[in-house]
């Protein structure tokens, strides 16, 4: 009899244990969301903006008609993009013009990551915007998120 009563008490303690675990996990998760928020997802907007600027630059500078490889220095000089930012691991611009001349800056791997289903929920993945007209193809992607810094 005495032994069976001990089993009952021990069993009830499991319930308390799991309740405490749930409270701790819920508290930490709720605290993080309350403090940091879910944030403002800017990746698609930035990709759209980058696409627009790239498109305008290529049209204005005649890069869509090139028959030879486009030099990176010329691209950055004419298009007014900051090299350090575009090569910081969070951006990509890929272009293939109607003459099959390819040009890309940034993370080459984005050409695969752009089309993964996880990209909408996981903000470490890029959101990309494609553009195609008259045989010219542009794919632009951004995975930039704001960073917490000392200020």
């Amino acid at each position, binding site marked *: 009899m005495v032994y069976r009563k001990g089993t009952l008490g021990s069993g009830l303690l499991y319930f308390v244990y799991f309740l405490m675990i749930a409270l701790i996990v819920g508290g930490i998760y709720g605290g993080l969301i*309350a403090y940091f928020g879910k944030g403002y997802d800017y990746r698609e907007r930035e990709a759209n903006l*980058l696409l627009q600027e790239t498109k305008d630059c290529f049209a204005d500078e005649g890069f869509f008609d090139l028959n030879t490889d486009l030099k990176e220095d010329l691209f950055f000089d004419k298009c007014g993009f900051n090299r350090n*930012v575009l090569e910081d691991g969070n951006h990509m611009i890929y272009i293939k013009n109607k003459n099959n001349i390819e040009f890309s800056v940034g993370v080459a791997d984005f050409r695969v990551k752009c089309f993964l289903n996880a990209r909408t929920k996981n903000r470490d993945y890029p959101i990309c915007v494609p553009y195609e007209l008259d045989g010219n193809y542009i794919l632009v992607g951004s995975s930039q998120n*704001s960073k*917490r*810094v000392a*200020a």
Partner: protein
Amino acid sequence: MDKRGDTSIMMNSIIYIIIFILFFSLMFWFVGSYSNGSALWEDFYSKEIVRVINTAKPGEEFKIDVTPLAVVASRSGKPIKDIVSVDNVNNQIIVSTKLNSGVSFKFFNDVDIVDWFVESPSGSPDSTRFIFKVVEEQRSGLS
């Protein structure tokens, strides 16, 4: 004897549960009152200011209303003039509503931001604006 022992275990458990509920309630209250939405506004304004810079042409001047940011900053004791700053070396905007931390976001437009300051005409957070000019990149180590 055995029955008294069982009651003691149950009482201990109930007390533990009450203490934990009280603790987490206090923690939620503290975090909720401390944050005041500051993380959300820092994130939002850093990205919106960068959006404006990315579409800007050299020579343009902007005045952006940052009142919600200033209201949150004033509650946490952050000087309003320090809520937005520009790092031209790394092409980034830093927005901060707390004393020792902020949020940064980079702009891809190859320009420099000059004559930037936060203006609060009435001295209170109401009608606070971030004012800046966009110029060609000067490559002279502006900060």
